[in-house]
């Protein structure tokens, strides 16, 4: 029977994808970020379909190669294809609970789930949990991050920018 073998391989691929980290945030994997849309086990190859967080992100090609290399490490895998698609679009609510934990560990507040009516949003300081923070720059060191400042522990920090289809 073919199906159980396929399932086992598919789980093994998902497992190994957890070792593929965001090249710029090494505490979260592409699975945690919600970038992995599909894993398909085909007769002669494994196909991994990913969603780009932001279209101009320069890390995408690095992620593509790292994904390919990681899956190639699995026994009996000969060919791996990695494809980026933008439908469905990646949205920041795809970040998993584990992903939020990983971001926080890195000093990045998780993307807020709720936007106020005027489009503004709020996060707490990832270091001291204070809510007494200010937005320094909606844009940050990478396309997906913003720069904030905590007035309680006097530490600059970053937040993952919320993006959604309702914008």
């Amino acid at each position: 029977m073919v199906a159980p073998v396929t399932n086992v391989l598919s789980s093994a691929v998902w497992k190994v994808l957890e070792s593929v980290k965001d090249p710029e945030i090494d505490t979260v994997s592409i699975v945690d970020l919600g970038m992995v849309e599909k894993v398909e086990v085909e007769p002669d190859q494994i196909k991994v379909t990913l969603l780009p967080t932001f279209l101009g992100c320069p890390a995408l090609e690095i992620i593509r190669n790292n994904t390919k290399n990681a899956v190639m490490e699995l026994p009996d895998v000969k060919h791996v294809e990695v494809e980026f698609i933008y439908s469905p679009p990646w949205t920041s609510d795809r970040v998993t609970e584990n992903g939020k934990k990983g971001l926080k560990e890195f000093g990045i507040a998780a993307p807020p789930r709720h936007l106020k009516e005027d489009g503004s949003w709020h996060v707490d300081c990832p270091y001291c949990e204070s809510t007494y923070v200010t937005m320094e720059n909606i844009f940050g060191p990478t396309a997906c991050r913003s720069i904030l400042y905590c007035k309680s522990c006097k530490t600059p920090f970053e937040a993952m920018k919320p993006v959604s289809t309702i914008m």
Partner: protein
Amino acid sequence: MSNVEKMMSAEEKEALEALLFQLADDDFLFSFRASEWLGLAPHIEEDVASSSITQDTMGHAAMYYKLLEDLGLEKADDLAHLRSAEERKNSIITERVNGDGYYMDTPQYDWAYTVVRSYFYTQAKKVKIDSLRENCSYEPLVDLAIKINMELYYHAMHWKVWFEQLLSSTEEAKSRMVNAIELVVQDMGDLFSYGDQKEAIERFGLIGTEEELQEKWMEAMRPTFEKVGINLPEIPSPKLNGRNGQHTEELQTAIDTLSEVYRLDTATSW
């Protein structure tokens, strides 16, 4: 080739390609000019913000060129770098220099001009993206517009804030902004034009009509202009129409600069 493309007539495909070249070349030239500000923006936070916007926008151009590649044209990098000025379909507003001087020498770029151009252009892009999301008959372009829209939200907000703040600032800031508006508007005649392909682009339901989109842009701008107490300008008819390959010398110098490295060896992976 997907089923959608198989069903498309030669005429429809030509119209789709024309629209994609306009969208791609617009974002490509606009983000090239914006990239010349790198390290020169008025303050460090603005340098971070505008270069981030520029990176996103260059990503949007790359995706439009990729859609053209998927339709059977040359590869995206070649389409971006190797086409001559006469083949380009961008609006004149996107090719203009940022001001006097050259960034490798003594740039005396005009921030007011950049704020006005960026705000007007980004709002026009927003109107087009909304129309593509809601009405476009070509599914891959609908999907792309949905994704671009999420990033565009932050861009539009950014330039609107600059526009309102500078026009509500000192007399000098206001007069520089008013001059910049005059300059930018002169080049806007072709921004909503589809050039020679107008009839076909509109007939195949690829995007809203020129008149409809221009009207939507005016509507979106009106509250901002009222807020800062100046009159909404009339968009003139185009003197040069970039959609038909008519351009200024400034486009040629932009292409020479942006493709210089790529042309050294087109087979290398840069």
